[in-house]
């Protein structure tokens, strides 16, 4: 039996330590990983917990991220609770197997520390890897600080393993800005955390030799569409379970999470939509803007997939202008968050003026002042009743102004 880890009611953890403790408390059966910056300490801390007797499960070091996710798929199909961690290039190498995991409905939890994708090489935070996994059939949860990295990872197991869902889940935290920033975290005690997640219930385990099953069957045109539609429906239906899990988590932790988080949106004329640590920085910008009389609010999809488009549209129904901020190179179009929000509004016949901003690529600093500038530009659109600013702008980019219309 794993030893109990003595935890104080308040710990000072960075996001990596927070995620590692959540994996430990979930008593994962198999962690297979190939460490990569900035998520390395998740794997490293977990290995230390194992060496120190705080973990009963297996820890498998493999030779690449492709193998890491493959080992996870194998272990999950065999019938165990499985988790891993990765970032950036490692995430990219896993992509093929991410689709396998979701298609086989294996409830693997992956704690992702978001980082830019090369080239040029960069170890710092942006959402390139998250966007890369967007269509992989996983549920993607967003954490803005170490506390949320811990909370979301615990919730991830419960969501993934629910028999109504049975889909893999990633938890996302910004590289360095969250993963390497130590903040106050209020952890649950080991037994409370484990009780919340519950015992793992295997479904169609391959190791049940009395009942042999085939994983990874081939389906050509006469089957593939039906299977993919079925999988998509599972994702589309998962918000009900996600809400339940968030509610249950609130009961034991006092911390409330929602499909869509908002800040001062109720009476707002304009709104900013963004995800990740910059959402919290933006809270300070909103407070400053309101001192100057600009009625601005914030919105963040806590769940990036399945995208809560109806909730987003509902929350934004009274605003006149919306700026969507994407932390990933859009490469040839408007950013993904812009597209999602624009689609959500259009589907509901809403016509807020929409603009897109690209920020923070490769860990570029985004300050309260930068976000305040965006708020002011967005307010210009609201006042004019039409778009008077550029469609796509860039925040804190050196050089002559770059924008697109």
């Amino acid at each position, binding site marked *: 039996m794993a030893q109990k880890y003595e935890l104080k009611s308040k710990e*000072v953890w960075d996001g990596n330590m927070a995620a590692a403790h959540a994996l430990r408390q979930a008593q994962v059966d198999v962690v297979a990983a190939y460490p990569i910056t900035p998520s390395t300490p998740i794997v490293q801390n977990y290995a230390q917990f194992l060496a120190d007797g705080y973990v009963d499960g297996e820890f498998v070091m493999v030779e690449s991220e492709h193998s890491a996710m493959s080992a996870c798929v194998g272990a999950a199909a065999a019938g165990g609770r499985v988790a891993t961690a990765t970032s950036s290039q490692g995430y990219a190498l896993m992509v093929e197997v991410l689709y396998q995991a979701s298609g086989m409905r294996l409830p693997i939890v992956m704690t992702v520390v978001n980082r830019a994708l090369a080239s040029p090489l960069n170890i710092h935070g942006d959402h390139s890897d998250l966007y890369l996994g967007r269509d992989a059939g996983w549920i993607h949860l967003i954490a803005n*600080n170490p506390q949320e990295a811990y909370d979301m990872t615990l919730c991830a197991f419960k969501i993934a393993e629910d028999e109504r869902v049975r889909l893999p889940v990633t938890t996302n935290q910004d590289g360095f800005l969250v993963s390497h*920033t130590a*903040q*106050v975290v209020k952890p649950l005690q080991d037994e409370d955390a484990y009780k919340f997640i519950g015992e793992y219930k295997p479904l169609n385990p391959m190791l049940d030799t009395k009942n042999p099953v085939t994983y990874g069957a081939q389906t050509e045109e006469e089957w593939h569409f039906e299977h993919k539609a079925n999988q998509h429906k599972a994702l589309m239906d998962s918000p009900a379970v996600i809400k339940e899990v968030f509610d249950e988590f609130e009961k034991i932790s006092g911390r409330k999470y929602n499909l869509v988080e908002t800040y001062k949106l109720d009476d707002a004329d304009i709104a900013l939509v963004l995800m990740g640590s910059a959402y*919290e920085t933006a809270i300070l910008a909103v407070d400053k803007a309101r001192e100057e009389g600009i009625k601005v609010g914030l919105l963040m999809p806590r769940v990036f997939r399945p995208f809560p488009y109806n909730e987003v549209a509902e929350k934004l129904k009274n605003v006149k202008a919306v700026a969507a901020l994407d932390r990933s190179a859009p490469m040839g179009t408007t950013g993904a968050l812009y597209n999602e929000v624009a689609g959500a509004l259009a589907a509901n016949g809403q016509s807020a003026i929409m603009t897109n901003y690209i920020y923070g690529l490769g860990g570029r600093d985004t300050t*309260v002042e930068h976000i305040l500038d965006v708020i002011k530009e967005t307010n210009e659109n609201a006042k004019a009743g039409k778009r008077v600013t550029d469609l796509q702008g860039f925040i804190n980019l050196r050089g002559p102004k770059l924008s697109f219309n």
Partner: protein
Amino acid sequence: MLQIRWHSRAGQGAVTGAKALADVMARTGKYVQAYSVYGAEKRGAPMTAYDKIDDKPILDHSKWMIPDYVLVIDPSLVFQEEIVENTTDDTVFIVTSHLDKDDLLAMAKHLQGKKVYVIDAIKISQEEIGRAIPNTPMLGAFIKVSEIIPFEDFLVSIEDILSKFPKKIIEGNLRAIKRAYEEVK
């Protein structure tokens, strides 16, 4: 919000120092952030680490700050002008050097007119811990200069934070902290 910037070389323990200070302050009920600005650098490259300490949760995730304190734990970095960037006349500098304050200011002109305290954290760590890891003595000097919490309380917390290390290391660090607390000028 109290904001602190550390200047160090990778491997001198600024990140650990910043996290230890955050841990100490969190135990007094404060909210904290401790982070550092990493490059792809290796041991010896100049780097910065940061502490933010406040009575309410800290939401600002930008790296930029106007520090109230600048802690320089490498003697050669004292001479680099980056250490005064984004500081004000009220910013307090605690720097490590074997020179006394007047000799130091004569050479490091960018520090003239600033509030400067000097501590030879390298020598203290070498003599008391046996290695040039000047982070804990810098914390002793910082507690003396800032009076942010009573020194006795600080010692209790830091001893607990260091408790994962062997006894010899803990004792060396505590001696180094106490010496720096006395010797900072």
